[in-house]
């Protein structure tokens, strides 16, 4: 491979990132960060298929340009929610700090160093400190996160956006214009007050010419663990209806899953429990559509 192609272009620091995906919504509390975290965790293992305990290379690895050896997908997760950074808490890495030499260094989640995270949460002295920022400061911080972080040679950079269509969104889009932006993945819950905001977010994406990867309907139904009765606490089908109406791909539904919540609350064992649930299968199905 040409040396110049692999060399990091300082003027275009994200030029080497193969896929950039924005996780957006418009509405708060629909599960953007949760879905971003689980997608990142699943994506980093997308190159591996375990057959009788032996790891083999899947065809997707060849698609990504790695032709021999075991696939090594690198995923970066950028927490662009400056006022409410959740990603470090969800991944139980709050106690870690981002080091600064010439640039900020992202924090690696795993021993194999295939998933790294950057969040304003790593820059806080105390996790409970409020981050009170007006627009210009938010713009400057977003620009730093995109240009002044020493990301490794990522296959995927997933950016978890805050709700709304504000400074963070405008800054991210302005700074990502020249890179490999795959598009936006929109998360919604099924109820009308949520889909209304997501509809606006979709209009925003269309106006700013961001490709729309699709819509995911989160918290879609709750199955009682005792009687298996499914109740649509937050309604059902609103996301799919919106996708059909606006002619964007519908990527799937994720039911309400208490194990996701418990994992986020620092119970690391819950991740193992979660991986055995139907909800984990929903995430798997979305990842398959994402890397197709």
């Amino acid at each position, binding site marked *: 491979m040409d040396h110049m192609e692999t060399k990091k272009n300082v003027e275009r620091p994200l030029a080497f990132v193969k896929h950039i995906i924005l996780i957006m919504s*418009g*509405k*708060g*509390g629909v599960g953007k*960060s949760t879905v971003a975290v689980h997608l990142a965790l699943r994506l980093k293992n997308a190159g591996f298929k375990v057959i009788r305990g032996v790891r083999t290379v899947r065809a997707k690895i060849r698609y990504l340009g790695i032709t021999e050896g075991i696939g090594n997908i690198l995923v970066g997760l950028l927490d662009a929610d400056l*006022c*409410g950074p*959740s990603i470090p*808490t*969800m991944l139980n890495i709050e106690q870690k700090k981002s080091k600064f030499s010439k640039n900020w260094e992202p924090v690696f989640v795993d021993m194999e160093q295939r998933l790294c995270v950057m969040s304003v949460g790593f820059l806080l002295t105390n*996790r*409970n*400190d*409020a*981050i*009170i*920022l*007006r*627009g*210009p400061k*938010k*713009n400057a911080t977003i620009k730093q996160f995109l240009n002044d972080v020493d990301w490794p040679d990522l296959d995927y950079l997933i950016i978890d956006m*805050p*709700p*709304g*269509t*504000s*400074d963070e*969104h*405008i800054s991210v889009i302005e700074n990502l214009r020249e890179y490999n932006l795959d598009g936006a993945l929109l998360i919604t*819950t099924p*109820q*009308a*007050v*949520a889909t*209304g*905001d997501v*509809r*606006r*977010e979709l*209009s925003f994406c269309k*106006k*700013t010419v961001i490709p729309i990867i699709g819509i995911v309907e989160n918290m879609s139904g*709750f199955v*009682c*663990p*005792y*009687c298996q*009765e499914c*109740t*649509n*606490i937050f*309604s059902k089908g609103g996301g799919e209806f919106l996708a059909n109406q606006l002619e964007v791909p519908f990527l799937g539904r994720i039911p*309400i899953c*208490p194990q996701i*919540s*418990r994992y*986020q*609350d*620092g119970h690391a064992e819950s991740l193992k429990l979660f991986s055995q649930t139907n909800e984990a299968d929903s995430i798997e199905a979305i990842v398959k559509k994402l890397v197709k």
Partner: protein
Amino acid sequence: MALTVCSRSFINRSRFSSLVYSYFNKNIVQMLPPCQAASNSTKDADQSRMQRGLPKKLPIGGVDQVIVVASGKGGVGKSTTAVNLALSLKELDKTKLVGILDADVYGPSIPKMMNLKGPVHLNKQQLMMPLVNYDIKCMSMGFLIEDEKDPIVWRGLMVMSAIQRLLRQVSWGPLDYLVVDMPPGTGDVQLTMSQNIPIDGAVIVTTPQDVALLDARKGTEMFRKVEVPVLGVVQNMSAYECPKCGHTEHIFGKDGATNLAKEMNLPIIGDIPLHIKIRETSDSGAPIIVSHPNSSQVTKVNFVI
């Protein structure tokens, strides 16, 4: 003085069986500080603010008390709580005049929840007339955009200007309570509100899980930094009861808000269960306080003093 008299009359209204009314009114109204004439200490505070380059806090004409419903975290039920709080304030004393200001510029939910739609008209003084439903005056950015599908893509400065207009260029008229539904986060809207008008109290809404509590703590800290009194914490979506077998599941965790409240030395002023009827009534524009005032779901709210 007037507020103390009101508080006593609320305590005497024991005939109201709905706990939602009682916890909203008994707790929140009692906690609101009595109105005071400008004292020397207030004038000193103003001077100190002006020296720091901050604007002087000017009350909104005709509005007695301002209560903000905030969180820090999105999607915890701020709008639902704000709407039902305003309605229960009105229900408890129909002579009281109540208004709702939807300060969530990017994602205005109040139009849907209150079943209201623009356009907004101007009065003779060129002030915007709030829209009224269920006897509550409402103002939202949602009434001012032509097509509800259109996003509001504004940077912070534009948002500041919009919030100023929603505060100052609306004919709120005489109001006893103005309930403000805040957007998520700790940014421009929160700062503009707290720097420009005197806020009598903030209600923090959260769900039990840790990521929500993390942001709720930040939201509370922010209000303390800008010297807004925090009245207490409302735990929303606390538990879910299966309609078929009655099994109770703490989907989003248990007691998170109670622990947060203890940690921050705040009272828990409400514990609202996760129930399908609350979502259904919000989506249909008939909030549960109005549509199902005596429902068992509403009475299951736990009330902790």
